[in-house]
């Protein structure tokens, strides 16, 4: 009875097709489960070997770092363990330490051939393997390896950013420039690694890199460079400020506004006041915010004027900037709230004064 029903199902092309799909899906699930089991077993085995490694090799490891004879004996034993186990053991020590102690662990890492394998992995056709190798090389790479790393300049974004991070440590500003000059950051998530890299660069290298600011193609990168320079290298930021403020790109002009907010020069103040007149509201809003950070009484009337701006965020930032200026700014806000004929200006001033009052009350309650 059942077999007759099955045969009748199989005769129907639709049921036959569906049966094949279900069978294929079952095979895929079995393969996936099998793959997961294999991966789990490999991981468990590595952890078991790592445990064994810790049990027999950890105590002599500390001695091996300071005693050449123990070191040789330790390395002979260590070579009996697989590369992933050696990495899992050494990498936490490399990350947690610095200076002479880290240099000794690095020497061990190199002598065990792990750095050579990392460099070899850079040739892999799988980008995630190249990324993993570069992550390992962050602490390990030395100036001798910069020629291998320089070849990554045509690679994908993530690889190039990671390479630039290493290059900022082991290379000069020209090496970093070659890696980044035609790099385009596609989204905001890519900005933070660049910001961190540029912020941690040696001052002299960064100053020299900033000399080539106008040669970088990416607008987001130029913006980040200007902001970092305003904090770390005000002289170079000042040099490019006027040009950045006149740039055709909105992001670069926003960068100029943020940078000018951090610089305490007359030129930067003039630049900010010019940016306050920009045709794009995002730039005006940023300029108003930056003026609030600078806290200069001479900007009160310029800011007051922008309480009438057609865009909400420009008015809000201008009002907040006035409030940041302290009593003179808030006095002007009160005047506008009480006497101005423009409803936008009255609303922005009133809201900011109410917000300020709420903050004062909240602070009073807390204390």
């Amino acid at each position, binding site marked *: 009875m059942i077999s007759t029903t099955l045969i009748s199902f199989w005769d129907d092309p639709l049921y036959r097709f569906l049966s094949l799909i279900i069978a294929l899906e079952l095979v895929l699930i079995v393969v996936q489960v099998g793959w997961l089991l294999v991966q789990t077993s490999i991981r468990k085995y590595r952890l078991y070997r790592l445990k064994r490694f810790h049990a027999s090799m*950890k105590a002599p490891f*500390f001695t091996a770092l300071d005693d050449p004879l123990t070191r040789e004996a330790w390395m002979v034993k260590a070579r009996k363990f697989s590369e992933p186990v050696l990495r899992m053991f050494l990498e*936490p*020590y490399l*990350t*947690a*330490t*610095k*200076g*002479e*102690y*880290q240099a000794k662990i690095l020497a061990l890492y190199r002598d065990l051939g792990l750095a050579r394998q990392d460099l070899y992995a850079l040739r892999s056709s799988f980008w995630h393997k190249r990324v993993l190798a570069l992550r390992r090389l962050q602490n390990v790479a030395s100036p001798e390896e910069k020629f291998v790393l320089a070849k990554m300049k045509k690679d994908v974004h993530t690889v190039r950013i990671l390479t630039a991070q290493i290059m900022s440590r082991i290379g000069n500003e020209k090496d970093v420039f070659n890696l980044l000059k035609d790099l385009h950051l596609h989204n905001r998530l890519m900005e933070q690694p660049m910001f961190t890299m540029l912020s941690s660069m040696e001052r002299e290298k960064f100053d020299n890199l900033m000399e080539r600011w106008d040669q970088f193609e990416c607008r987001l990168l130029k913006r980040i460079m200007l902001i970092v320079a305003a904090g770390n290298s005000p002289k170079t930021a000042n040099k490019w400020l006027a040009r950045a403020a006149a740039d055709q790109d909105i992001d670069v002009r926003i960068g100029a506004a943020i940078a000018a907010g951090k610089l305490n020069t007359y030129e930067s103040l003039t630049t900010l006041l010019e940016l306050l007149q920009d045709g794009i509201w995002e730039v005006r809003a940023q300029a108003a915010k930056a003026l609030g950070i600078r806290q200069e009484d001479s900007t009160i009337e310029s800011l007051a004027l922008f309480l009438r701006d057609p865009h909400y965020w420009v008015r809000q930032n201008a009002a907040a900037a006035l409030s940041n200026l302290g009593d003179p700014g808030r006095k002007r806000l009160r005047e506008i709230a009480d006497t101005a004929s423009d409803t936008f200006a009255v609303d922005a001033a009133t809201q900011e004064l109410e917000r300020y009052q709420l903050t004062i009350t909240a602070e009073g309650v807390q204390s």
Partner: protein
Amino acid sequence: MDSTVSHEGTTIPIRVLIADDNPLVTEILAHHLTRLGWESIAVSDGEQVEMLLAKEHFDCLILDLHIPFRNGMEILEALKKNGNRHDLFIMMLTGQCREDTQGRAIALGADRFFSKPFDPYEIVGELQRSLSPIHQAQGRRS
């Protein structure tokens, strides 16, 4: 060895309490201190630090800011409040090395401030420079 002091035939080792929730840090430091002939005890949370300091004598406390139950600052505040641990040399070892944090720790009685990642040689060298003379003097007094 300059790390210990002889007094009426007995040798008193310098005692160090290491408070860090990262076993890697405590292992490295403990290894180097043991090599000097010093005695070290490692703990991973603030409550254990306070309990041990109340019960036993230590010459030095190596303290991480972020440890469970009671953080480094709370421990420093408690020690300052009690006011009876002037002989305890306190070294902060932390990943948070902002100037205001450093200033606050020093104001609360920390003697040295080191940031992570750390160089064990640098830390042990500093401990030797700072502690050995104090310990010698205490040994002579006792």
